[in-house]
């Protein structure tokens, strides 16, 4: 039932891109699009563990890592949310329905969902950092009784920059999890929370001994999230974060994603905070 934090994929899918067709494109924000992809060969989309990523290859442009952001229980499509920052991400975001792209993977170690069973979960996400955490939320909601209290703190700069707005509204309404959405800057009409998500941590009722925290977002935010969680009584070893620094081969060969002793594509992208935190603030790494 609970997907485990799988080691990297091997076999042909690790090296040879498989063709996928864009089945739908959703505009999330001015700079982000969510793509639903279906395998061209008609077989199921690959199984994945929440937190894993694929290498998305746009023919003639290039290949980049993207977190899988769909529901892990569905095998009819692969879902990615892409934010435009450069050539390849712009090409992906510009794809239309029917376009074909190549996918390798899934790769990497995902969130520790087996360890999370029966525990309280705190999820702190910032900006597009919600993308790799959304599969965790799908999974938790589908197996709600298997987890304790679940709090999701999600922040973005402005209301217009929030991902998955309709889904968030639905999740807030049904109350299966405690979801708090906050923005740095409110615009007219915003009646929700204003402020950074990490500040809200101290307002949660936390039982440190039975809590696990997962975070993904800008590195600055993750650093402060870990410190705040420590203030709330958690040990850095109870906090897991997804390190989305850039990578190339995704199979631990090229060394592009080396981060201290780790190759992020193999030992990550999800890593325990006590392992990465000392290195996060080092400027040269």
């Amino acid at each position, binding site marked *: 039932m609970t997907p485990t934090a799988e080691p990297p994929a091997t076999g042909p899918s690790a090296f040879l891109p498989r063709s996928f067709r864009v089945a739908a494109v959703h505009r999330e924000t001015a700079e982000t699009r969510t793509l639903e992809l279906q395998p061209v060969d008609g077989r199921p989309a690959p199984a994945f563990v929440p937190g894993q990523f694929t290498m998305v290859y746009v023919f003639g442009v290039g290949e980049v890592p993207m977190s899988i952001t769909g529901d892990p229980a569905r095998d009819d499509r692969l879902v990615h949310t892409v934010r435009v*920052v450069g050539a390849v991400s712009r090409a992906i975001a510009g794809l239309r329905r029917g376009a074909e792209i190549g996918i390798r993977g899934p790769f990497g170690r995902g969130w520790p969902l087996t360890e999370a069973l029966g525990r309280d979960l705190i999820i702190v996400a*910032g*900006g597009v950092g919600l993308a790799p955490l959304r599969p965790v939320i799908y999974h938790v909601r589908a197996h709600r009784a298997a987890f304790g209290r679940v709090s999701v703190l999600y*922040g*973005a*700069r402005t209301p217009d*920059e929030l991902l998955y707005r309709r889904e968030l509204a639905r999740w807030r309404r049904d109350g299966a999890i405690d979801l708090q959405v*906050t923005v*740095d*800057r*409110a615009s*007219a009409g*915003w*009646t*929700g*929370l*204003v*402020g*950074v998500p*990490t*500040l*809200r941590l*101290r*307002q949660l009722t936390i039982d440190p001994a039975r809590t696990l925290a997962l975070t993904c*977002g*800008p*590195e*600055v*935010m993750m650093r*402060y999230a870990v410190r705040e969680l420590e203030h709330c009584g958690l040990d850095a070893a109870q906090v897991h974060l997804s390190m*989305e*620094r850039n990578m190339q081969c995704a199979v631990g060969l090229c060394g592009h994603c080396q981060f201290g002793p780790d190759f992020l594509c193999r030992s990550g992208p999800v890593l325990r905070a006590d392992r990465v935190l000392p290195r996060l603030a080092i400027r040269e790494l």
Partner: protein
Amino acid sequence: MDTLEPLLAAHPFARHLSAAHLHVLVGCARNVRFDAGQFVFREGERADAFYLIRDGCIALEVATPTTTLTMMTLGAGEVLGWSWLFPPYRWKFDARAVEPTRAIALDAQCLRTKSETDHDLGYELLKQFALMVEQRLHATRLQLLNAYDANG
């Protein structure tokens, strides 16, 4: 007689206070509630209380000629207002309930007087407020950083 002591003791603000100090605070406390849209206080008014929010949500706002800007929101377990601590004891923002909100109001004059005679109490209160100011300043810096825009 019913007192506010259990409500006050349940609020995170009171977590580090001794029983004796808590007892003093109860003497300056009253229960309040605000409807959605109701102002708790407005910019320029006398800061004669601070509020321990029990539930609901309060927005700190600044009105400009054309619009109202929300700087931050405060919810259950948080503390609203520190202008009561510093002369000239005037609010610098509007505070408005975004949803029905219950809070404990602590009378500023009462606490200022008690703090002058009991410096231990005054020191405890100042420590709590200094911590809160530090947290809010830090949060404001994060807001200013525009961290979501930077890659990584």
